[in-house]
């Protein structure tokens, strides 16, 4: 079954070898993982690179959460604890010219695709120097000119936006680009995500949708979200190629998402990856996630992907203890730098703000100021 990790040694060109098989095969059946997949033994740069992004993300988000608890962040804080392996795999295969439309729990992927950490800090702190300039906050950020779309909250809405961007690129004659967007199992139940996935298939754009079933939408468990046996079965209904994925296994994430990215790039139909994971934090940091049952915490998908990855690294001696320690220190330093830089920057002020919702200043409605000025 294509797109699945096979438990074997993960070689330098694992992606290419899979693709050589895949290209000439008929549309994939949706794939199911073998029970109890074994951690891979990836003697591979990409694996270590991915681990470092994961580590950086975890370090950053722990700091962010502690700042939230200290009352230093306005509004919510949303972290991706436990989802770093899936997320990093979403960003790490993307190239300049690709489009990435991340959602809530995608810091690792955002970083791997090139978002500077300082921009995250800036957005949470509302810095004027940040991409959102204090106008929008937390996860609602992006730099569309760099292919990083800025999500709106309404789940599912970004899927069709990526489709349109890809159509435009194709229309312009660009080559070798793809788009990747993420969604939760909850977001898959919105009408917008349905319309977006269907139109992607109709337009046959090189899109990868990575859906993460982290077993909850906020406090709502799967049984009140959907009733199909497996969400990957939706792939076939849209004309996507579909894959299941153990999201705690970084090698599997790199393998499956990497394959999906390659296949999309090669002109295959849109790709759906459904990863299984447990969200290891609250929906946001305000949420104590006491609704997560003990039973579910004991499920195999409840493993911490970061710990699992580190265990593989140690076990297979892919990096020694000292290197790991250095990486950890470097991550802490990067995080420190990001926050301290952002903290020094000015925040917006209502009086200096350019209060115009449109770019054509001559067309701004004369309705008057409004607000408290």
């Amino acid at each position, binding site marked *: 079954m294509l797109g699945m990790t096979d438990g074997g040694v993960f070689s330098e060109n694992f992606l290419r070898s899979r693709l050589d098989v895949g290209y000439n095969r008929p549309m994939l059946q949706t794939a199911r993982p073998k029970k109890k997949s074994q951690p891979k033994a990836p003697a591979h740069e990409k694996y270590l690179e991915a681990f470092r992004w994961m580590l950086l993300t975890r370090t950053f988000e722990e700091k962010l959460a502690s700042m939230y608890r200290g009352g230093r*962040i*306005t*509004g*919510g804080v949303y972290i991706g604890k436990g989802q770093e392996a899936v997320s990093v795999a979403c960003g790490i295969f993307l190239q300049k010219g690709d489009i990435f439309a991340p959602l809530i729990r995608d810091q690792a992927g955002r970083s791997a695709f090139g978002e500077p950490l300082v921009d995250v800090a800036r957005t949470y702190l*509302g810095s004027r120097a940040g991409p*959102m300039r*204090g*106008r*929008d*906050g*937390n996860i*609602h950020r992006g730099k569309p000119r760099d292919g990083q779309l800025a999500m*709106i*909250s*309404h*789940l599912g809405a970004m899927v069709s936006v990526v489709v349109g961007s890809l159509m435009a690129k194709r229309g312009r004659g660009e080559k070798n680009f793809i788009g990747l967007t993420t969604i939760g199992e*909850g*977001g898959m*139940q*919105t*009408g*917008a995500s349905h319309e977006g996935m269907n139109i992607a298939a109709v337009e046959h754009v090189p899109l990868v949708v990575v859906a993460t079933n982290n077993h909850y*939408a*906020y*406090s*709502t*468990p799967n049984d*009140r*979200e*959907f009733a199909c046996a497996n969400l990957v079965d939706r792939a076939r209904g849209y004309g996507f190629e579909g894959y299941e994925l153990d999201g705690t296994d970084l090698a599997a994430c790199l393998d499956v998402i990497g394959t999906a990215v390659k296949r999309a790039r090669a002109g295959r139909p849109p790709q759906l990856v459904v990863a299984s994971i447990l969200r290891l934090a609250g929906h946001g940091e305000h949420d104590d996630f*006491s*609704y997560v049952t003990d039973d579910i915490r004991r499920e195999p998908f409840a493993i911490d992907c970061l710990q699992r990855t580190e265990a593989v690294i140690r076990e297979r001696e892919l990096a020694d203890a000292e290197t790991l320690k250095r990486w950890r220190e470097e991550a802490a330093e990067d995080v420190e730098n990001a926050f301290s830089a952002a903290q020094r920057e000015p*925040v*917006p*002020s*209502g*009086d200096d*703000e350019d*209060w*115009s*919702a449109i770019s054509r200043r001559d067309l*701004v*409605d004369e*309705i*008057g*100021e*409004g*607000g*408290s*000025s």
Partner: protein
Amino acid sequence: MSITYLEAIREAQAKLLHDDKRVFIYGQDVGGSFGGAFKATKGLAKEFPGRVLNTPISEDAMVGTAIGAALEGMRPIVEMQFADFSSVALNQILNNAGTHYWRTNIPVPITVRLPSGGTKGSGPFHSQSMESLYAHYPGLIVMTPATVEDAYTMLIDAVAIDDPVVFCEHKYLYYHLKADNLPNDGMPVGKARIARPGRDLTIVSYSAMLHESLSAAEEIAKEGFEIEVVDLRTVKPLDTATVLASVARTGRLLAVGESFPWGGVTAEVIARVSAEGFHLLDAAPARINAKDTPIPYHPNLWSTHRPSSKAIAAKARKILRE
């Protein structure tokens, strides 16, 4: 005893579930041990098994389901997680619930709760006030309670009404507003309230802006002016008579709302008073709304974007000078 605006909404729902078998609550995260993003249904799923149901993230279907249940005699309450997300249920609300009675002679008794309005750091998609969109279309009652007491009695009224009700509860008031106890009866649905009597200027407001308006009135009272403040309570129907009677007393009008400036409640209030009470006005009517941009995240921007008691007072002074 002290009870918040949010607790009042919870208590109203508890009472409704208790008193009326036809009532159920349908929405994201309302059930289980969780009780909703704002805890407006905390404990209710346990107290009323099978009647407080979590839904998929499917606002259109949540409202559609409620409509179907209402047609079969139920009294569903739909909780939107944030008002802003009702944009994807708007079609069901306007075009299905809103047209049904007129088309078929059969009303659709659903109540859609919209946690509305701005709070610090909530940004463009968790801060909206959507009452004007819903009030513009025929077939709906749109409630905008400004007090703990109203939050309680009006929600009970909403569920009793045979027609669809959009219930705009204000998130800023959830914790900020407290009352000593809950009333048994409220004012009649559709009637505005004189929240503060006065004689020099009428401020018409509703929801969170009522409180900004009241502070402005308080402040200006020190300057010797008595401002009358009208709380609309429902924006559709809009109680023109009470507003006109107030303007008849004061001769001056300022309409204050938190939603976007183009059209909407404040425009409607001014249009009615100008058209029906033109001779009552001694000065030009005025309005204050939020600015015509999305609602900003950063508190510095947000507090400039939304009308403040200071801005209301400044505007009021200007009108009083005319």
